[in-house]
């Protein structure tokens, strides 16, 4: 396996999962498995206009890079892409993309799952709701389930 390639990007713009996978896999024949996660802005109650995503610029980049390097040390990954948007994200739009590529499928699944779990709880982003009604939105509360999700990776924070 070639030295893993890590791309971390924090941006306002939307991403293209297809372009990111193509850039990661192009000209390489060692990657048999590519697992991707796309996180979208949900709105089941039809009440949400958008989420305003705030972030801590330098730390967000560093922290995701660090999580990606931890994943590469733990699984035989050939490449990782992590893109997190900030700013105003409308209901139904993309928020985050994580890609983990490997020779074998379970490493790719585990790598992407690990990245998302740690990104959720360790990367400095915060979401605030903007409602259609114009009502003042609340900051989204952290989810205990997200902390619990880390348990499956052992003491590796």
């Amino acid at each position, binding site marked *: 396996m070639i030295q893993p390639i890590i791309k971390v990007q924090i941006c306002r713009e939307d991403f293209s999962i297809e372009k990111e996978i193509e850039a990661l896999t192009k000209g390489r024949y060692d990657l048999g498995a590519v697992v991707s996660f796309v*996180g979208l802005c949900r709105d089941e109650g039809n009440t949400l206009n958008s989420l305003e995503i705030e972030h801590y610029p330098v730390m967000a980049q560093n922290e995701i890079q660090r999580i990606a390097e931890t994943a590469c040390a733990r699984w035989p990954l050939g490449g990782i892409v992590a893109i997190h948007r900030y700013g105003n994200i409308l209901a139904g739009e993309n928020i*985050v993309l994580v890609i983990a590529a490997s020779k074998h499928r379970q490493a790719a699944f585990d790598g992407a799952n690990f990245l998302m779990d740690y990104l959720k709880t360790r*990367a*400095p982003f915060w979401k605030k709701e903007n409602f259609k009604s114009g009502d003042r939105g609340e900051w989204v509360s952290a989810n205990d389930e997200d902390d619990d999700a880390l348990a499956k990776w052992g003491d590796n924070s």
Partner: protein
Amino acid sequence: MKLVYFSWIRERTGISEEDVSLPDNVKNVSDLFEWLRGRGEEFEGFLQQPEIIRVALDHVHADEPEASLSGVREIALFPPMTGG
């Protein structure tokens, strides 16, 4: 020392970032919280529950009250993260 605040802590304090001169006896995160409490009720309010406040020193998580501020240039205070 540069202090930066995010999310509802930024809103509560009304400050995004500020430069402060910390007294010499403010040596760790716990001391910082104590010092901030003395700055007014907008700090006192959320610092009554220090366990829900996360701290980063020079862009690295440092949630232990004993974490030293020695040599640090930027301290961030923020609530638990909700990205992803």
